[in-house]
């Protein structure tokens, strides 16, 4: 089973440790409605809809409220270190969480001690912590955008905010920055770099690119990276290799965008509803 770990922007929400429930367009965790606006709820919605489409069990969610002070994230980190040893998940994705190197290392150590250890995927804040910890290589997949790739490529940067200016966030330099991230061991086994062109890469270089269909407005939309990561997680859980899953997810995300026909003002929920059709098309093309 796929487990999804992240935050929702309401500090009053306690740790939720429960399977996702999906009824019509409503997403619930432990009876609480989770609106897929952006962030982890958008990833959760995309992964859940993809799992249902693929005939998989719905993901298990580990959520907590955190408005950015990190208190919720640290409570969830503690919960994971206490409960994961007795749990079994085939893959786990860590998402919008307060980057904290000490807690990252504790959670990683706990996850690696599970029998068998799950396939680990990191995005957003937890990816930042994974890079800072020097343990990026323990992960199967990171899903950075161009700015975050520049951060991975800058071996000294503690956060994308401090990425040095000479490492431009220029999509034309993605192959070079991918190489630099691997030279300094700051990348997961596979990278899915989101952008005008999506790049799937590993230590050997660029494995594949996805360029179309292109909806320029998606660059401005909050949550398109979250839906992409959500679908990639579901496809890994389905049994595709991480690189294959990344490729199909990138293609499906573009198909969903095409179906949504977005403007820069479109919200991510408009894209989420097209995921089943988009995923079917991308999967059909794979076979």
């Amino acid at each position, binding site marked *: 089973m796929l487990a999804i770990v992240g935050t929702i922007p309401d500090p009053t929400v306690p740790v939720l440790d429960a399977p996702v429930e999906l009824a019509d367009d409503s997403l619930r965790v432990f009876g609480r409605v989770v609106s897929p606006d952006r962030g982890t709820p958008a990833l959760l919605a995309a992964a859940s809809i993809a799992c249902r489409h693929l005939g998989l069990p719905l993901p298990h969610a580990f959520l907590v409220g955190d408005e*950015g002070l990190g208190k919720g994230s640290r409570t969830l980190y503690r919960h994971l270190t206490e409960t994961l040893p007795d749990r079994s998940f085939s893959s786990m994705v860590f998402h919008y969480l307060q*980057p904290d190197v000490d807690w990252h290392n504790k959670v990683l150590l706990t996850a690696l001690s599970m029998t068998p250890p799950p396939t680990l995927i990191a995005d957003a804040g937890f990816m930042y912590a994974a890079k800072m910890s020097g343990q990026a290589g323990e992960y199967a997949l990171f899903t950075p955008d161009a700015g975050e790739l520049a951060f991975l490529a800058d071996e000294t940067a503690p956060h994308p905010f401090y990425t040095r200016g000479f490492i431009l*966030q220029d999509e034309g330099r993605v192959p070079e920055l991918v190489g630099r991230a691997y030279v300094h061991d700051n990348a997961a086994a596979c990278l899915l770099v989101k952008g005008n062109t999506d790049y799937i890469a590993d230590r050997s270089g660029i494995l594949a690119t996805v360029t179309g269909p292109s909806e320029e407005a998606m*660059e401005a939309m909050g949550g398109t990276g979250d839906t992409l990561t959500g679908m990639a997680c579901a496809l890994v859980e389905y049994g595709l290799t991480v690189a294959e899953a990344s490729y199909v997810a990138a293609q499906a995300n573009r198909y969903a965008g095409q179906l949504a026909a977005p403007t820069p*003002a479109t919200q991510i929920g408009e894209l989420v509803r097209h995921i089943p059709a988009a995923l079917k098309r991308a999967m059909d093309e794979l076979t």
Partner: protein
Amino acid sequence: MAFRDLFKRIAPRPRADQRADRGLLVFEHTSEVIRAEQILKSAGYAVKVMGPPPEVQKGCDLVVEFPLMEELDILRSLKGAGVAPMEVLPVTGPLLAPVDLFQVKDFGQYLMVRAANMKITVEKNTRVIVNVSGGGCPDVPYIAARLIGCTLDDAPAPRDIGHTLCGYALELAHAEMLRLCSP
């Protein structure tokens, strides 16, 4: 599984520098360091007073080490107490400067500004913030929910409601957007 592989699986080897997510607050006088430490400790932050690294030659001979991710919230607290630092630096690279490059994309009806990993998009005619994208710290969805649908004139500044470095990056993008969209 070979014994060595098993050992590798259960014993990650963090980098020698375990303080990669820490920052330094540099003050002019030691008295400010002491006040800042008191303020931040009483607010529950994990801070400690240390000697500055050799690269930091400015200010007094003490600095406050703090959780770098919470920079925006900590600076707001210190400013409110009248103890603003001279400078804020990441521990791992005290010579690193915050991002100061903006990328601007004109969609015709909409304008997008990106700073580091954060993007903000505004409808030009109405000056309404229509999207916030990017980032990875947990205040981003919170700030986005507060900003989207507001005009640039009515929306709270990310520096006032954010807490993290992602919030700080969004503040820079927001400020640049205000500059670009000023009458």
